[in-house]
């Protein structure tokens, strides 16, 4: 029994040393003090619509956001209006957004400001596509971290055809579009 105890001690000591070695090896290969979260690189995103459907949450953690500094404040916003709108007004049949999540507010002639009502947005990306194809591309999608549960592997990232979703440092959790362009 004594000998077995001793042997057990030696073995678990070896095991601990092994784990220690693994730890040391990993530290050399950059153990980060800080955690990571998932984020969409808006410059890679093709607004394919999977963000709306692939998130593990009932309501996708992705939302549309607006980079106002890129926006042209267009009267005929191609992210807001259907391709051939009857009138440039806020009637639902003219809107691209299926949930009416975009607010259109007159600022000064001829400029209008578009803001997103995130509680309505379902991240379908229709407005993003419209804005990016025919406008300035100021509307884009971002994962919102009050909703996202930070899965160890994001299911949207798994499905994203553009490989647009990656881990980013938790302290800079957004990759907003800016005038500087892709970082």
């Amino acid at each position, binding site marked *: 029994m004594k000998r077995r105890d001793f042997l057990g*001690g030696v073995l*678990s000591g070896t095991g601990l040393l092994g784990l220690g070695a693994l730890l040391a090896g990993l530290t050399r290969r*950059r*153990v980060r*003090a800080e955690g990571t979260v998932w984020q969409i690189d808006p410059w890679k995103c*093709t607004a394919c619509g999977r963000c709306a459907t692939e998130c593990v949450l009932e309501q996708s953690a992705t939302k549309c956001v*607006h980079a106002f500094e890129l926006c042209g404040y267009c009267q005929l916003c191609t992210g807001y209006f259907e391709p051939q709108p009857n009138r440039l007004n806020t009637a639902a049949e003219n809107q691209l957004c299926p949930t009416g999540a975009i607010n259109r507010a007159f600022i000064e002639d001829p400029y209008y400001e578009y803001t997103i009502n995130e509680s309505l947005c379902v991240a379908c990306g229709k407005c993003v596509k419209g804005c990016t*194809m025919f406008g300035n591309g100021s509307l884009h999608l971002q994962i919102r971290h009050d909703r996202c549960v930070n899965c160890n592997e994001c299911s949207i990232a798994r499905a994203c055809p553009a490989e647009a979703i990656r881990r980013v440092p938790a302290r800079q959790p957004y990759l907003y579009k800016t005038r500087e362009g892709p970082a």
Partner: protein
Amino acid sequence: MIPVLAVQRFPPPQFTETGHLLPPLTGPLSRALTLEYLDVAVLLGALALAAWLALRQRSRNWLATLGIFSLLYFGFWRKGCVCSIGSIQNIAQALGDPSAGVPLTVLAFGLLPLVFALLFGRVFCAAVCPHGALQDLMLIKPVAVPPWLEHGLRLLAHTYLGLAMVFAATGGGYIICQYDPFVPIFRFSGATALVVAGVALLVVGLFIGRPYCRFLCPYGVLLGLAARLSRWRVRITPDTCTQCRLCEQSCPVGAINPSTLDAPVRDAAADKRRLVWLIALLPVLLAAGLGLGGLAGTNLARRHRIVNLAERVHQEDLGLAADTTDASAAWRATGAPVADLYTAAQDLRRRYVLAGRLCGLWIGLVIGLKLITLAIRRRRKDYEADQARCIACARCYLYCPQELRRLGLPVPEAPPSALEGVVASDRPQAEAQSRS
């Protein structure tokens, strides 16, 4: 159709009339780092408490209470991510790819339970893992699984571990997370197939103790390996074992090795011959694993998005596929040279073959060693908990009359209910022994 990169088709306006200011672009922050560290502290505390409750206090009730806490905290509150089971993939990926780092908290989740297993056995499984705690709650009437089935099904977990490591180390995704059956339950949302699988496992778990833990959990395999070396461990009896057999059927996960005192005498020469054959079989199994693993690796590589994309682009370029997929269109829009894509895919295929071979070796080794250990006749005087399989749930303690005596509880005449029918024929013997 792919939107091109943003172009300033319309110059941003100057609001000369109204002096309108652009609204700021902000969003909710991610979870604070201190809270992440708090998770690690809770994990550490729960592990220490579980070890103390299982080995010193020997209290099933308190362990179950701790299990419920862990289920609520790590399961329903933290929504199951990150968990120790999944964290081994982050570690494997960081080992396989130096540019992929692993956050300290994830590393702690991966290693702390293993360190505790090296010292105290699988106390993580006893009351800290939310998956285990959930299944434990569901267990109402455990039935014994025949040993051949038990040993066979446990190989599933070893295979799952091997595959998960292949995919993680090659950057091919985290299959343990993708197919986790219980995390959708913790979140009350997830893919339907997984919810069904999770509920099915829980229903099976009403009668088969912890089916995920025993037959599927990849982390359980590692914990079992670590627990084999553990210095302190579950001892069924607090005193000496009287071979009363009362604990024989008490383990819900079939982890109790019976005493061999009254095992039928076997032909020693035949046993030895079988052992020699099995040892000779080991290199054959290893070679087979190596070969099959390499073959499997080539196929598994197709699951990697880059390899997949390269094959698609190749087909499109050859005119075998008329249209583009979302992925190939997105790749074409980046204007990246096709040669780079092919090189990357070729490189990945090589890595998959290597990883597949290692995985095959691992599975061959596991099967070979399992056959050998099953053939070795080990003499065991007492009823003992198997170090690797025991999840330290403390259920067996109260079946031991010695434990009841230690606690000053009455030693029952009849064996406890779970034993009904099992030891009925041996009752006089058990009673005689408990009286002596």
